[in-house]
């Protein structure tokens, strides 16, 4: 079906599935990007499985996987540290489910000057709010987790899923967001009361805080002031680490894959992603298209539709009508895909056909793997 009709007449080395296998083999970090609902988490898991099957020590960081996939990967409950999945492959496969809050907590502990300072921050209500809800925190922690796995463990393939987001670059921007937040002039206003020498000029700031308090209530502002006082002195550590995370993402060993599905809205979002990645000088190494409808016939949809109309009222007419439906959807899918493919340069475009079942076990991941990677090329 869809996966079979591609590359049939091309030399084997141009087979996109073979090229995708090289992309995985040639990189030690793979970031799966794309909008929500396109099968990103599953794709990420398949990439890591491919690494394990090629004899590598692979780990996948999943974000909010569907429950049955999580179960299949042994992720019952929150495991924020990698746990190995048993399986019959030469390498190893580990998985973890990102726990945004405890990753953030670990980061605070790492950078605190004393356990005391860490506790003061962790207990602060304002901190508890931002660690769970500051927009981009999930993206930030996904990248932080990637960096931690890269620095503190000896995996030779790390695959990360990215949170569903409308902005492709949220996860690139995320590590800097907290430091930008700390640079915010309001932060400096809030900090001022603890720094005696500027207290004199701070009347305006106090007035401002009163204004904000009027809208959101005084407790919220108090929590914020306490948080920023507790955080004092830790900003540099956070900034340095954010820079190192970004460096890792820009490194040659890191490959970005774009995952999409051939619906117009998803293709539009995918195109937007590809453009934004391009602006950030990030090359898309492969485009993976999930849920492609099979193409049963090479006949034009209009011709099939016409034949169906001529035969209206007969079973054959119904059969042609059905064939015309699928020919029409396959044709529009390919047309949309072509516009997106232009945005990924020479990167391989690999199609995974619409599968009749949901993927929720290792067998399912292997099935997708057989569509993504040429089974004869290893």
């Amino acid at each position, binding site marked *: 079906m869809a996966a079979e009709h591609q590359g049939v007449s091309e030399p084997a080395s141009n087979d996109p599935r073979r090229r995708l296998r090289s992309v995985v083999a040639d990189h030690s970090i793979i970031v799966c990007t794309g*909008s*929500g*609902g*396109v099968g990103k988490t599953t794709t990420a898991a398949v990439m890591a499985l491919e690494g394990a099957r090629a004899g590598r020590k692979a780990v996948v960081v999943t974000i909010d996987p*569907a*429950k*049955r996939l999580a179960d299949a990967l042994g992720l019952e409950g929150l495991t924020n540290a990698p746990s190995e999945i048993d399986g019959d492959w030469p390498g190893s496969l580990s998985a973890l489910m990102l726990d945004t809050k405890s990753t953030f907590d670990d980061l605070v502990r790492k950078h605190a000057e004393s356990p005391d300072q860490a506790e003061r921050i962790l207990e602060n209500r304002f901190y508890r*709010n931002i660690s*769970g*809800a500051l*927009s981009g925190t999930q993206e930030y922690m996904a990248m932080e987790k990637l960096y931690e796995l890269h620095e503190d463990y000896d995996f030779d393939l790390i695959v990360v899923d990215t949170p*569903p987001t409308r902005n492709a670059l949220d996860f690139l921007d995320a590590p800097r967001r907290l430091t930008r*937040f700390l640079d*915010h*002039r*309001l932060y400096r206003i809030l900090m001022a009361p603890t720094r005696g020498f500027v207290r004199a000029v701070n009347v305006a700031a106090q007035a*401002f805080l009163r*204004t*904000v*308090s*009027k*809208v*959101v*209530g*005084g*407790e*919220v*502002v108090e929590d*914020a002031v306490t948080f920023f006082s507790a955080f004092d002195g830790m900003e540099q550590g956070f900034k340095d680490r954010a820079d190192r995370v970004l460096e890792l993402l820009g490194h040659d060993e890191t490959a970005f894959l774009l995952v999409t*599905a*051939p*619906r*117009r*809205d*998803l293709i*539009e979002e995918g195109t937007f992603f590809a453009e934004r990645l391009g602006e950030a000088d990030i090359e898309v190494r492969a485009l993976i298209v999930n849920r492609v409808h*099979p193409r*049963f*016939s090479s*006949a034009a949809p209009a011709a099939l539709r016409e034949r169906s109309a001529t*035969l209206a009222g*007969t*079973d*054959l*007419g*119904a*059969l042609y*009508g*059905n*064939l015309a*439906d*699928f020919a*029409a*959807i396959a044709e*529009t*899918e390919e047309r*949309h895909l072509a516009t997106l493919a232009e945005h990924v340069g020479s990167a391989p475009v690999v199609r995974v056909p619409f599968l*009749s*079942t*949901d993927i929720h076990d290792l067998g399912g991941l292997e099935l997708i793997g057989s569509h993504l990677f040429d089974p004869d090329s290893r």
Partner: protein
Amino acid sequence: MDPAQFFAASRVIIVAGKGGVGKTTVTAALARAAARTGLRTLVVEVEGKSGLPSLFGQPALEYDEIVLAPGGGPHGAADVVARTLTPDDALVEYLEDHGMTRISRRLVSSGALDMVSTAAPGIRDILILGKVKQLELGSDHDLIVLDAPAAGHAISFLRSARGLIDAVRVGPINAQAREVLDMLTDPARAQVILVTLPEETPVNELVDTAYSLEDEVGVSLGPVVVNGIYPEIPGLDVDPTEAARAAGATLRSGEAEALAAAARFRADRTALQAQQVARLAERLPLPQIVLPYCFTTDLGPDEVEHLAHAALGGIEALGADADTRTDRGAGT
């Protein structure tokens, strides 16, 4: 059930569902269906760029209303209008309406809104819902259809009111949160319509979302929309060669196989869809409205019209008991 009665049951319909299930398409179809019953319908978009305007062949939405689908026609349809809402604009409007113009300018120009909404998450959501509530209390529209944020976010979006009443104990945000909660928990004012595809993962997530919304928000759940059901074609189980003989037609080489494979694919998927629809009915005792799959990736005004028609048919088929839905929600 009479569609006019159905759409008049609550002033606000919140359409929610996981990413990729066609939530925006369903929003468009429901809005157009409501307008066809003569209700002046406003669609509110909250996530910024969505595919909504292009479904009606219109440019991107702004804070000010635009007409998405003009009314008229033989059945006296009303207009479908639409606008987008942003927390910043909503806050400024709110404060200005409450005699706090100076504060509002300062809050926005200093970037304090970012800071404030970080300090108490949910503030952005409550500003938007507060604006929806204001529109609901006004008389410019008969029905407001809200295209809610995707799945998990929909829960936190709708839960924001309850959370903020605890987090922010005084002031305009608190007042706003209380009024929003009043609206959300009153079945005559608001109901949530959940959208899913007839597939395993979306069905599971819909069931979880339904229970969370009832338990944690206390919002009334309307019927569930199952989107993307393959329309039935009778005669697909006949062997193509025999069908050709019966029709006195000849098939080209390879055509019998293609016809048979396509028919088998449709039959397999139809069976799987039916399984998932049945599983959903078993796990969630809410009436269902089924919308057909459109065999194109280019959804436009024609498809919206087609889906609106299907939605009206689905509503008519709901049966008279559907108007007691508030008593037979998910929490039974």
